[in-house]
């Protein structure tokens, strides 16, 4: 039975190989990101749908335009199981076994940093999106093939402090800030960056605690934060805790005029769960949803994937693929060295606007967004136009 199955599979594989050979030119693109494990939920919203949408769109118009003619994309996907060791193995496999032409950067700050040496060793461009770090300068100096476009921790913390200062100036809030963070690289780095920035801006951090990754029982945290009588609440949080903190804040009646939660505040599921009560909630990221490019992207995403993208890194992920596409077509071959050089030198038209890398870092990004009438608008950015003014949160 087993032998029979094996021979059947072998026959199918041979048939596929022969069939594949008969087709026109093909360009192989690999992708490794979580499909299971703690980060799978985020990747299923922000990462995978955009890769699939992009591949679908490129193939629908006949493929990538190379000098040798059009080449359709063949996508090879791996699940890294939210495990850095697996991620490294998967990238290595894509480079050496599958011999793909290009690899989409993985999902998550830690995963992009962990796989950077492999990308560099095999000379693949790494257009990192979901990676926020203060180590961008060090990394881009060390690896000539890595590119960043979502911003740094200090800018993110600074933008939140800036909004709080603005609200304080208007007399809406006082000096008291309650701050919590998820005890994971992302949350710890942001909390560490925020502490001196908040203090320098004259804020008093009246509650400052972390909770372990994966904690969903956050009622003690929210109650203790409320007991400290804060004017503003800031959480450097991940998706499940973003949801749990918001629900608990609603239940415990944590009525602050500025309520900030980090990752996943911009997810459509967040609005679906909480409805109108999250009006005025602040969160990481944001976009300008009113540009024609963004509107077209939202419509295409909804049509092909069946769901809306999130209001932050989804569009940036898609933009990174547009950059890859334009660079490959600009070079006209799959010469990775030439593509890397092309990315460094050129400006790219994308769904988030023009992107130019300066020292391998795109310095134009959104930092804070806010739910206003059912849409998560960007309210703070560095160099991206269209920021809406910040509204004051009026209860739940």
């Amino acid at each position: 039975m087993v032998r029979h199955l094996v021979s059947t599979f072998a026959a199918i594989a041979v048939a596929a190989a022969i069939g594949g050979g008969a087709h026109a030119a093909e360009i192989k693109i690999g992708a490794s990101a979580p499909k299971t494990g703690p980060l799978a939920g985020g990747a299923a919203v922000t990462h995978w749908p955009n890769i699939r949408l992009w591949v679908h769109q490129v193939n629908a118009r006949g493929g990538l335009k190379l000098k040798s003619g059009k080449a359709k994309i063949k996508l090879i996907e791996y699940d890294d199981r939210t495990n850095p060791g697996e991620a490294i193995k998967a990238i290595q496999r894509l480079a050496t076994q599958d011999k793909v032409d290009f690899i989409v950067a993985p999902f998550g700050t830690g995963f992009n940093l962990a796989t950077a040496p492999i990308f560099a060793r095999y000379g693949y461009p790494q257009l990192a999106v979901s990676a926020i770090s203060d180590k961008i300068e060090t990394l881009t100096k060390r690896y000539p093939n890595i590119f960043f476009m979502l911003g740094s921790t200090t800018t993110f913390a600074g933008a939140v402090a800036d909004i709080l200062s603005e609200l304080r100036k208007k007399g809406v809030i006082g000096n008291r800030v309650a701050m919590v963070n998820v005890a994971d690289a992302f949350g710890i780095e942001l909390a560490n960056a925020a502490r001196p920035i908040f203090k320098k801006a004259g804020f008093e951090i009246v509650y400052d605690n972390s909770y372990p990754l994966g904690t969903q029982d956050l009622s003690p945290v929210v109650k203790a934060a409320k007991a400290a009588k804060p004017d503003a609440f800031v959480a450097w949080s991940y998706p499940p805790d973003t949801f749990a903190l918001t629900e608990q804040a609603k239940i415990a009646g944590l009525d602050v005029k500025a309520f900030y939660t980090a990752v996943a505040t911009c997810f459509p599921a967040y609005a679906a769960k909480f409805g109108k009560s999250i009006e005025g909630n602040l969160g990481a990221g944001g976009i300008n949803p009113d540009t024609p490019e963004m509107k077209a992207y939202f419509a295409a995403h909804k049509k092909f994937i069946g769901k809306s993208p999130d209001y932050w890194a989804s569009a940036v992920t898609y933009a990174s693929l547009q950059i890859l596409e334009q660079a490959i077509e600009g070079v006209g071959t799959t010469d990775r060295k030439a593509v890397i050089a092309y990315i460094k030198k050129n400006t790219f038209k994308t769904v988030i606007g023009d992107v130019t890398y300066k020292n391998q870092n795109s310095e134009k990004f959104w930092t804070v967004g806010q739910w206003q009438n059912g849409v998560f608008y960007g309210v703070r950015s560095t160099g991206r136009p269209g920021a809406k003014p910040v509204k004051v949160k009026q209860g739940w």
Partner: protein
Amino acid sequence: MDILILGILLGGSYALMALGLQLQYGVARIMNLANGEVLVAGSFGAFWFWTGLKLSPFLSIVPAALLAFAANWLVYRYVLRPLVRRAKSHGQLEVDSILATFGMSFILVGVMIAVFGGEYFSYSYLARPFEIFGQPYGLNRIVAFGGSAVLCIVLALWLTRSRTGLALRGVAVNPTAAGLVGIDVLKASALAFALGGAVTATGGALLSAFLTFDASLGVIFTMKALIIIIFGGVSDIRGAIVASFILGIVESAVARLIDPGLTLAAAYILFIAVLLWRPQGLFGRKSA
């Protein structure tokens, strides 16, 4: 007071995660590592009931429990019974069942991802404040706690008062001796395993009202359940119930009084302490 109530509510959730595994491990001697996946499947059932059919997620308990009962019975009958039959010792069965259920957990995760996709699922149901002694608590948590309490009481009564319950307890204490006095051990084990699955799926449906879940979250619940049943003593359901509440109260006290970052550490310190001084668990008997 606030800490105590929060702790008891949390303990109720923990009991929902652990009771099913307690039945499966205590009676059927199957260390079911797919326990968490069954729980998440229950959550998906409730989610689908609420968003698809607009019915209360708590109504989904009935079909979810029945379905889980049937599925778990079939799994025991056709996958695990051969392992039980060929196992020469308790230890071998434990190793084999851990490997088999570990494999099943991957299958279940894969199936759930294929059906529902990998993203986060969360819905709002009864997310209203409910005041006890002037402090607000989530109504969905209180309802889940109520469900958990009813489940605990019914199970404990059934196990101690009914004839079938007596048979199950007999198997839990000593399968060989239970067989000698005329209890159909395989049947009792199949019943316990199926019932455990049903309890776990019920727990998943209740918990989904306030937890954000995704297809691969199960392993977290399995770990929690594992700690609780070893902490409470593997052969007595009261142990798991008491252990759940102790863990809940300790975690919320630590979160509130010391540091929320230390809740996991506190849980594991408690676990190590029990293993050091009472390795058979709170309610366990010394190994016979």
